[in-house]
């Protein structure tokens, strides 16, 4: 494939966006979906072509530079794309999973208002996401970075008549902007130190100076991390992602599980050259990752909304990826990114299918016993649950285990490595527990929904929330079909494909200790080899294969324990757990998500708003800025009150003043004349 065709990969979805965005309102629904699918399918095919080209020629990179975007004396940025093996994997995930989700959406959204709008936004998202992964410089990456944020904002707020959806969209955008603030500052620092934003220039400069350790590179890395934490929903900026579940379910699957939220991981991997030079920054990445993983997992255990459980699970899994990056196991992080894209997209789409079946119900307390009613959804979701729980031989086991193993073997800071490994292991147990909890509550046990009133009850709930009665939003289409029903095949087919990928997707990365050859890592070696290969070799010596096997066995055991516990409490003796802990302070703390949102509101948002209202608006603006005008006006008025006495309006008094003035001038002239002589 000619590198010049790279442009087509992102530009085609953009064309789809333009067509659907301007004409979509007047087009028939099949036409809208057809356009959107076409402009997603062709890039996917192009990516396949790209793969075959690069593999057959053995080329490690491919790049294309077009005209200049920003040029000022001494600095310029081009429109430039580049592909290496990391990009190839991202491209495959984005276009592949993206295409499947487009198909699914055509069925899921079939009866929604604003069908054209949905697909236009979805294509816009694809455009920006592809720009993000293809970018060959920081600024173009930032274009995609902000752009996916925009698409996410538009799609979360898709049901904009609902206040909660509009709020969630705004929150997502603003919190992401906090991350972008860090990213921007990182770019300014890079410009100040390197004079360029091109990956090639910057990384080559770093590689050429082995003496640079820490220092400004730490500052850049930490600021980049702020950006990554915003986009990938890590502590302390994760708060937007659970709220983002207000968007339609396919959006949650595509943007908030499989692709956009992994952009932070991708960015850290892409800039690993900088991170590698800063042990401090790497440790921070690892700690944030591990902390986020366990933090989100605990919240996920007590959520009742099926999508929110999955959302916290996403945050938690992203934490794993950061943990992987933090111990310089970049290929493991990318591996988990890929398998996670498969099984989390699957889980979300399956959850969407469940919600569809129940006419819009998302509360797991009102589900149960769906195993027989929607068998295809059940079986595909089962694959996803086992995959994420980390039970071999499904995909999640291999990628998660790789990260845990690498963490355990982290040689730069062995103590920290062991500690983070323990945290990761505990999280793995929790993950298994809450995912099987979800599985049992949804599919097993008795049917807790009221079949006759499905949808209606939902409508009533929403009518209560919105007295104005405008609840056109939120999955209204799923109301109306009464009775539980399996989804149409246009939705089930993507589920089946993703289920297959979730089962076999991990086999390309089976580590040597388990008899595989870890193709995946070797595939990424050209990207990460420069800095990590040596370390890997050391690791392999230090921790033997037998150790690796033991660790794998431990994590499988932990996953099985999680399953077992969930089985006891949600299948055998449902309700016992709630009865014992339902009123404990700890439960309330976790159930209220540690009051993080409230804490942010009370410590950051409100003080800013109130402070600016009282101090800036009340004092600075109205007293200092406007007051200075009044003071000068008052002084002027004071003088005027004296001088205005002259302006009596009486002609003769004017004449008198005139005469006096003339006399004074005369006298002055005479006096000065006398003085001179």
């Amino acid at each position: 494939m000619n590198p010049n065709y790279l442009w087509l990969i992102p530009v085609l979805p953009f064309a789809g966006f333009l067509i659907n965005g301007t004409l979509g309102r007047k087009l028939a629904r099949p036409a809208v979906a057809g356009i959107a699918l076409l402009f997603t399918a062709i890039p996917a095919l192009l990516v396949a072509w790209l793969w075959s080209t690069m593999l057959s020629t053995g080329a490690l990179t491919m790049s294309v530079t077009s005209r200049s975007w920003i040029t000022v004396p001494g600095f310029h940025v081009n429109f430039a794309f580049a592909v290496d093996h990391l990009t190839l994997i991202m491209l495959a995930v984005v276009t592949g999973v993206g295409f499947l989700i487009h198909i699914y959406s055509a069925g899921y959204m079939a009866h929604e208002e604003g069908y054209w709008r949905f697909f236009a936004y979805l294509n816009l998202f694809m455009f920006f996401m592809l720009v993000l992964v293809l970018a060959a410089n920081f600024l173009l990456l930032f274009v995609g970075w902000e752009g996916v944020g925009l698409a996410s904002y538009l799609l979360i707020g898709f049901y904009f008549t609902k206040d909660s959806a509009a709020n969630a969209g705004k929150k997502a955008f603003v919190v992401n902007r906090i991350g972008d603030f860090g990213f921007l500052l990182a770019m300014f620092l890079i410009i100040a130190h390197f004079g360029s934003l091109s990956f090639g220039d910057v990384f080559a400069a770093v590689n050429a100076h082995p003496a640079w350790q820490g220092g400004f590179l730490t500052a850049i890395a930490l600021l980049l991390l702020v950006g990554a934490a915003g986009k990938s929903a890590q502590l302390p900026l994760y708060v937007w992602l659970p709220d983002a579940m207000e968007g339609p379910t396919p959006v949650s699957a595509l943007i908030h599980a499989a692709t956009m939220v992994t952009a932070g991981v991708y960015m850290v991997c892409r800039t690993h050259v900088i991170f590698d030079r800063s042990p401090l920054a790497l440790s921070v990445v690892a700690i944030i990752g591990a902390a986020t993983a366990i933090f989100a997992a605990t919240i996920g255990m007590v959520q009742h909304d099926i999508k929110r459980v999955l959302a916290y699970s996403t945050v938690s899994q992203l934490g794993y990826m950061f943990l992987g990056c933090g111990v310089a196991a970049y290929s493991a992080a990318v591996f988990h990114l890929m398998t996670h894209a498969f099984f989390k997209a699957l889980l979300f789409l399956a959850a969407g299918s469940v919600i569809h079946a129940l006419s819009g119900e998302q509360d797991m307390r009102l589900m149960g016993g769906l195993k027989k009613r929607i068998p295809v959804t059940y079986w595909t979701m089962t694959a996803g649950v086992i995959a994420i729980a980390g039970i071999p031989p499904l995909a999640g086991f291999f990628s998660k285990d790789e990260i845990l193993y690498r963490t355990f073997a982290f040689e730069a800071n062995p103590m920290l490595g062991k500690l983070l490994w323990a945290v990761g292991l505990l999280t793995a147990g929790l993950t298994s527990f809450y995912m099987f909890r979800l599985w049992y509550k949804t599919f097993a046990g008795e049917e807790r929904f009221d079949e006759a009133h499905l949808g209606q009850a939902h409508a009533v709930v929403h009518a209560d929330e919105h007295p104005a009665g405008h609840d056109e939003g939120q999955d209204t289409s799923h109301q109306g079909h009464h009775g539980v029903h399996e989804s149409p095949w246009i939705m089930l087919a993507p589920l089946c494909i993703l289920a297959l990928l979730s089962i076999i997707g991990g086999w390309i990365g089976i580590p040597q200790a388990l008899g595989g050859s870890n193709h995946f890592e070797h595939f990424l070696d050209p990207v990460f080899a420069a800095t990590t290969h040596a370390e890997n070799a050391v690791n392999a010596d230090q921790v033997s294969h037998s150790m690796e096997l033991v660790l794998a066995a431990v994590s499988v055991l932990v996953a099985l324990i999680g399953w077992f516990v969930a089985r006891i409490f949600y299948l055998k003796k449902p309700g016992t757990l709630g009865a014992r802990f339902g009123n404990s302070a700890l439960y309330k703390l976790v159930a209220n998500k540690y009051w993080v949102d409230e804490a942010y509101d009370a410590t950051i948002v409100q003080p800013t708003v109130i402070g600016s209202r009282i101090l800036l608006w009340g004092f600075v603006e109205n007293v200092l800025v406007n007051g200075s005008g009044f003071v000068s006006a008052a002084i002027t008025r004071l003088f005027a009150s004296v001088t205005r006495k002259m302006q009596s309006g009486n002609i003769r008094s004017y004449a008198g003043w005139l005469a006096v003035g003339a006399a004074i001038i005369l006298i002055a002239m005479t006096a000065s004349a006398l003085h001179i002589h």
Partner: protein
Amino acid sequence: MVPIAYYLILAAVLFSIGIGSFLIKRNIITIFMSIELMLNAVNLTFVAFAHQWKLIHGQIFVFFVMVVAAAEAAVGLAIIIAIFRTRQTLNVDNINLMKN
């Protein structure tokens, strides 16, 4: 030949009378006349100096002043008549439209 000082003294006296009556009188016609008086006092100094220095400039200026005075008289009287028509008075103390 009359010394120039005599002309100047006469002009100063005329001018002072003009100023005085301008300030004292209330009738707008009288005020007008005192303005003319002051103009003529100035004219007198012009002519006197022109004669003294044998320069034509002063005399030319007098013509200017006379033309302006004539124009002023024409316009001024028209204004006075207009004022009288609207306000039925020629007392300047009552004509203070500019005030406020």
